[in-house]
């Protein structure tokens, strides 16, 4: 569903992403982890069609994002860490707005269920300014899920959510993946990645450090056997001389 080949993004002399290649199949949840500045957000924004890569190819559902951006984007949803909402649209109107963009004919039947799923039913007529940070995030998520995207890109999706919201969000992600969506999830919350991701892509300095299931990664580095994901992550991104004993 999501194919990335040789992705590179250069900001002036600074290479933010270098030669990244991976695929995400329907039903998979790929966790994108790495330290600050590793290139996770640049990668996810490139796949969302926001940033134009310097080199490389991105395909969504077989559509080349550079050559057929509208077809490719109609299959995906991007949910950023900071919810961008329009101040004059109510929660429900945000969904109607997105419904028109993605040509969701049955938007009237989808909206109530989605608002219920994300605990927004009581805030149907609220403006973004009247919503808490977490509620705004939920609304942004609802907007992303409305058209049942085949590819779901989530950048720190749990930011601002309360414990109930986090639980619901995790269930929502898993449910969408089980329904056949290809999901890329960028997060610093390693327990979240460990819990819901089927594979992990560890990035550092714009490059792939490791990719695969946690078991695959451990198998390729026997020294990491039996350690928690956090330790594995630190071991992968930190030079050996800097590692804590």
């Amino acid at each position, binding site marked *: 569903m999501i194919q990335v080949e040789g992705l590179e993004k250069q900001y002036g002399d600074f290479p933010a992403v270098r030669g990244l290649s991976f695929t995400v199949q329907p039903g998979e949840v790929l966790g994108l982890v790495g330290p600050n500045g590793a290139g996770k957000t640049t990668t996810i*924004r490139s796949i*969302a*069609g*926001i*940033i*134009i890569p310097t080199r490389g190819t991105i395909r969504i559902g077989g559509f080349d994002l550079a050559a057929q*951006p*509208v*077809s*490719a*984007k*109609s299959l995906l949803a*991007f949910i*950023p860490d900071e919810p*961008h909402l*329009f*101040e*004059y*649209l*109510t929660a429900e*109107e945000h969904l*109607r*707005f*997105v*419904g*028109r*963009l*993605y*040509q*969701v*004919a*049955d*938007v*009237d039947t989808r909206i109530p269920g989605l608002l219920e799923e994300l605990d927004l039913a009581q805030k149907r*007529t609220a*403006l*973004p*300014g*009247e919503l*808490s940070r977490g509620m705004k995030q939920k609304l942004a998520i609802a907007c992303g899920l409305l058209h049942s995207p085949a590819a779901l890109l989530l950048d720190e999706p749990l930011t601002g959510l309360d414990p109930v919201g986090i639980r619901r969000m995790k269930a929502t992600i898993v449910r969408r993946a089980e329904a056949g969506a290809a999901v890329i999830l960028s997060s610093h919350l390693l327990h979240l990645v460990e819990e819901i991701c089927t594979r992990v892509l560890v990035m550092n300095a714009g490059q792939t450090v490791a990719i695969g299931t946690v078991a695959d990664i451990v198998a390729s580095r026997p020294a990491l056997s039996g350690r928690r994901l956090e330790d594995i992550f630190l071991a992968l991104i930190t030079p050996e001389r800097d590692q804590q004993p």
Partner: protein
Amino acid sequence: MIRVFLYLAWRSTYNRVARQARQLKNPRYLAALAFGLTYLWIVAVDQRPEHPPQVLVGARWLELVGAIGVIGALLWGWIFGIERRVLAFSPAEVTFLFSGPVTRRGLVQYKLLRNQILILFNSLLWTLILARERFGASPWLRALSIWVLLTTISFHRLGASFVRTSLLEHGRIALRHRVVSLVLLGALVIGVAWSIQDAMPDLAAGWAGGLTTFLDALTEAAERPVPHVLLAPFRAMVRPLAAHTLGDWLRAAGPALGLLVLHYIWVIRADAAFEEASAEAALRRARLSSRERATPRLAHRRLPALLRLAPVGWPAQALLWKNLLAVVRTRRARNVAGALAVGALVAAVLSFQVQGSIAEAAGWLAVTWAGLAVVIGPQWVRNDLRSDLLKLDLLRSYPLAGRSVVAAETAASTLVLTALQAGLLLVAYFAFLGNSHMEPPLGLRTVALLTALASLPGINYLGMLIQNGAAILFPAWVHLGGGRPGGVEALGQNMLIIVAYSAVLAAALALPGTLGLLVFYLLRDEVGWWGLVPGVAVLLLGLAIEAAVLLGWLGRVFESTDPAAADVAA
């Protein structure tokens, strides 16, 4: 503490300018800078007359006309209030300053300091704009005079906002504490009203004799005892600008600087004078998080049937719908629509009455504003990419082609501006309705109205496309989002922008307009005023072709714009 404020203001400005200057590596920005500098050169230097011009507002009237202008600007602040803009703090300022060990007075001082950046920039612009031949002092003295004037006006607006807010929030208690300010204001208003009434016959007679005679009558009226006293401080503010020699300037600068200092003391003490003063209230509002400030005051949330969005259709129409909602829902939009409707009704009734001349004057005023809105309107109506480019990330993630985004965004502001102009033209049409002696006759006026209503959407669309194009091409330099600099302090830069925009729009309209007129004149002998129909059709066709070409180009630029570039001018 002032050193901290200076550091923050200086470094913020320096870094912002440096970041904008770095854009010059891009040839597009470099070309824009060259264009802008050439434009400034033409305005400031190349068009200066070799000999002192026979200007309308000559030196003898300059001080008086300037003083009246200052009174108008200050009264505007008192009546309409702009405290939100004057005391607007950024989220970062709120986070660091409001939670830090900074007094309310310190915050006001910081704000005054930040306003200086805008004032200094506009002082420079005005120094370039006002030719030496018309304003006698040397460029340096002229710059200093303009700075003193703009700073005093800025201080006054802030002080007025304190008093207004204090009165609105604390009523009678505030009344007691603001008694000096209010007595002075009341005396000024009563004095001005009395003086105008007293001088009205002479002014009316002068008006009948033309502008020069009117200005002479005005000068004479201003020399009468009461107006003389009332105008004295305002003339003192303007006098340094009219000084021709260093000696004149030095004599004039003393009182102007004195007024500046008095205003500063007034503004700074306005906070300390009253525990629950308006400064506190205004700052408290600013302290409220972005959540509070992001909640617009809406007329109501129920949508009219006309504005329901069908789930399928042209996808980009969702953007148009969203941007129209942003305007339609505000109280201001409803107030303007209501005022125009009532205005049209009243004008229609008055036009059949004996007082028809009032209706006629109102009609011409409405026509003038409708025409001016072609060039000024895009500065007011900004519910398009100039607001949405701050959410470029989001726009770029939508499954829309760049040209569709630009087309829909531009259509939104075009519709709003055209509706405003149509309202004004209808007011004018009804105001002239009962006047059977008027030239042109009713039939021709109807044709003119229909022609305008048919052609304005096309003209406005092209104009808005130019405005949006500037935002897409130079997102780091064009002000995006709300909170655009306004008021007298920013008048210089806004004026330059409007003149430059008018020139570009005129160039874009030249060919379609000429072709339309040509068709009309060729057919006029055959079909009379009906020739306007094919004339307008040709005009609209020409505009459509130009718009299509521009849309294609701007759409491609939009698709290749780096979202990071759009953050700079936020």
